[in-house]
């Protein structure tokens, strides 16, 4: 058994990389997969908080790299999901504390014991990003239907295309507001896919449940949680139809449906 290593990245900050990493890891654990997540956002760690394991951190990624701890010692086990672990980033150092070669080593050591290794990338296109993708087998690009997020996603896609290893890439379109799309005030899923020309693996509706969940360190909340579960099943090779974001639509479309539309 050898793990698949999936890096979650975006270029732009604040589009939902950490949320995506956290929720996908929980959803994969629900599918009885052995999962470990690695936070590579050194100096700005947050995966621990979003996953609700922040109080139990003993060691971090930099401790492992600098041989003050073993990988096992740095792994924090999730309380709710039996086979889910988190390797937190260091909070006091910067991205140069880890090198791409060291990330490859860490991934190599973890592969045998897990089904999935999810790597949460920092924003940007510099060292932190290069660390995050160094050991990856595939990449998920998270974007929002918003001009700056799409442009930055395109930049990341370009960088990965130009790289030596042609990593398979798929798109997660996060924070979609179906009502705005319907009104023509937000790029649609088709628009984003059209512009970026890479395959989508899932669409996640904008959902206040995500914020409420992160307040409490809870994962897979609400409709967004369902969307992340779908993505996890697709990652696992299942053929899951794309979520119909219109099913909970605005008054007009509900009325239209009521009258047989």
């Amino acid at each position, binding site marked *: 058994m050898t793990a698949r290593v999936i890096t979650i990245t975006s270029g732009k900050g604040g589009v939902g990389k950490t949320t995506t990493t956290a929720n996908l890891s929980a959803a994969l654990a629900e599918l009885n997969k052995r999962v470990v997540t690695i936070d590579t956002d050194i100096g700005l760690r947050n995966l621990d908080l979003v996953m609700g394991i922040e109080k139990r951190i003993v060691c971090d990624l930099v401790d492992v790299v600098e041989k003050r701890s073993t990988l096992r010692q740095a792994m924090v086990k999730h309380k709710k999901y039996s086979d889910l672990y988190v390797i937190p980033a260091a909070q006091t150092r910067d991205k140069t504390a880890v090198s791409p070669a060291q990330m490859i080593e860490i991934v190599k050591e973890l592969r045998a014991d897990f089904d999935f290794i999810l790597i949460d990338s920092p924003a940007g296109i510099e060292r932190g990003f290069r660390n995050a993708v160094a050991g990856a087998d595939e990449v998920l690009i998270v974007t929002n239907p918003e001009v700056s997020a799409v442009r930055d996603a395109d930049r990341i896609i370009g960088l990965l295309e130009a790289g030596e290893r042609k990593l398979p890439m798929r798109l997660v379109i996060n924070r979609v507001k179906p009502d705005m799309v319907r009104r023509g005030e937000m790029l649609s899923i088709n*628009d984003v896919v059209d512009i970026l020309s890479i395959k989508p693996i899932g669409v996640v509706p904008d959902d206040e449940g995500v914020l409420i969940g992160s307040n409490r360190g809870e994962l897979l909340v609400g409709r967004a949680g369902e969307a992340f579960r779908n993505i996890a099943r697709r990652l696992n090779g299942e053929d899951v139809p794309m979520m119909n974001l219109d099913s909970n639509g605005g008054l007009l479309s509900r009325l239209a449906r009521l009258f047989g539309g």
Partner: protein
Amino acid sequence: MGTFWSRMFKRRVIGSSSAAKERLQLVLVTDRTDVSPEKLQAMKDEIIAVIAKYVSVDKARIEINIEQRQRDHWLVADIPLPKGADRERPLSTGLEDA
């Protein structure tokens, strides 16, 4: 679907998303190819000038654009050549003085 009610309730989509898409597609051509609209225009002018040395062309009908195919970009030129009477026009090749 195109039922009576959905047609009744469908608003005309004239929102800002089409502007977002157009602007993104434009700026991404520059981002990906490092060819800005200004550079493209300068290139066009020079290409047309070279062609005009050899054949008389109707500049207004020449189209030189960057086209996207998947994630690749192509510089595509459509240059209609003159026929019949047009061709009989004396050529100013610009080479006579050389």
